């Protein structure tokens, strides 16, 4: 499979990366080179093989069912969470207007 400029523009839009015409033109052969190279995976017989879900067998744990079981990842961190925001106002993240 290969991609053309329109497809790359569509992917870039899905990935929320603005790309001008020149950047799209440049990306097309690069992506196609990589995609053609990974095509070889199609040669592999994967009959009966389950796709890998976890690389090392491990069980998912449940944390203690209490508020703030771990103070580092619990609540009450509003100011820390907002400290690096490009725009924070009144204890919220600021974004451009989204409703007309």
């Amino acid at each position, binding site marked *: *499979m290969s*991609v053309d400029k329109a*497809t*790359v523009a569509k*992917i*870039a*839009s*899905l*990935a*929320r*990366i*603005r*790309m001008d015409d020149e950047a799209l033109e440049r*990306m097309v052969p*690069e*992506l196609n*080179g*990589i*995609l053609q*190279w*990974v095509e*070889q*995976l*199609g*040669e*592999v017989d*994967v009959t009966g*093989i*389950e*796709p*890998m*879900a*976890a*690389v*090392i067998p*491990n069980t*998912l*744990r449940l*944390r203690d069912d209490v508020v703030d079981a*771990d103070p*580092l*990842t619990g609540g009450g961190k509003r100011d*820390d*969470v907002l*400290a*690096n*925001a*490009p*725009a924070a106002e009144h204890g919220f*993240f600021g*974004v*451009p*207007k*989204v409703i007309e």
Partner: protein
Amino acid sequence: MTDLTSLGVKEIRDGVRDGSFTAREVAEGFNAAVAGAAALNAFIVTTPDHALAAADKVDAARAAGETLGTMAGVPIGMKDLFATNGVQTTAASHILEGFTPRYESTVSQKLWDAGAGMLGKLNLDQFAMGSSNETSYFGNVTSPWKKAGSNAAMSPGGSSGGSSSAVAARIAPAATGTDTGGSIRQPAAFTGICGIKPTYGRCSRWGIVAFASSLDQAGPMARSVEDCAIMLGAMAGFDPKDATSLQMDVPDWEAALNSDLRGKKVGIPREYRMEGTDQAILDSWEQGKAWLKDAGAEIVDVSLPHTKYALPAYYIVAPAEASSNLARYDGVRYGLRDLPEGVGLQDMYAATRAAGFGDEVKRRILIGTYVLSAGFYDAYYTQAQKVRALVARDFARAFEECDVILAPTTPTASFPLGSMNEDPLTMYLNDVFAVPASLAGLPAMSVPATINADGLPLGLQLVGRPFDEQGVLNAGLAIQERAGFTAKPEKWW
């Protein structure tokens, strides 16, 4: 008095413990070495005060007769992928420039708790995506090594290129690295130092900027196997804040180091004999076999039939995970925001990400977005995850016949910066020997073996069974003792 910057982790720790010198003297020595090595561009920010404060704490603890930690008095470099409280953390990307975490990553916290201090945040490939340290927003890192008869700036490898450059240049006795598809082992091999990626889950990923979560693992980079064993012991351990953290005890790897390999079988994977591999690398591999045999091991042939497919599978799985992980950089919560006049939220996202991410990061996000998109998911992503399962099965079968696998770390020695940028694929191929162990989550290490005709270091790789870091370290030690690798770069910076 010895130049303290010539010492490694173990020598510093022991010397501080027995009072041969103070932790402060060590920190001052390395701070000065770091300040004098700006030409390497190994650090994005330096933190001499952090190193001094940690050293003073250690000296005070010793004076008070307290038991010192396993890394007490050792100042280290911290790859700028680990969140450090109050110190800018960028992943070498413009999109995180100025980001100052209000928390500390688990691994860095454990190192500080063990008595280490921080010399600074080390440069790397942007978001750890690269194999030459040429994708950093903060400029290329230069290796301290030079090719014989040439003044060209050489690559320190990547993505942990700041780490490898700093340790090889003796401006840090050790550094943290992270390995997603070879990012500890390949730079270690390029610069003549040691580096180990432990079993997936040994080191907590909490507070490490995520690239590909099912592959990312932290590990130490230092100049000896012993130093790696000590530092890995300080970094590893169960962390409830990481859902994939291994809930098992951390062995005392340093205490159990033993280079007597009698009764051990070393597997030589025949599929690693690939076209395009330097003859000098193949020769060093032969030499490595002889060394391990000399240490008492039996050499056996093993087969890893899906080796050839590991790299293409990686270049689907890793970008897929990256495209998802990097969706968080949206110009809203932290980092860069590019808000052109009069645009809405969606355009702000797109403008921010266009301005903030470098070309290689964009390329991988686009590949990842494509292989996960409707209609292509099964053909690419599911197929790659099946191939990944086969790569892991190959290793499991090989480890029925051997205890540890010996292979080259890289197909070539270091190359000049700027010489491999024509086609992204050429660069990807440098990780051909490193990626399979990453896909299978196995512990793997690179140790320096020899110097090639150009005067550049070559590394050998050891891969072990899950949780058998000890077996990897022991075989590494056997090589270290026999290789007698003492070469070091001549100071030009």
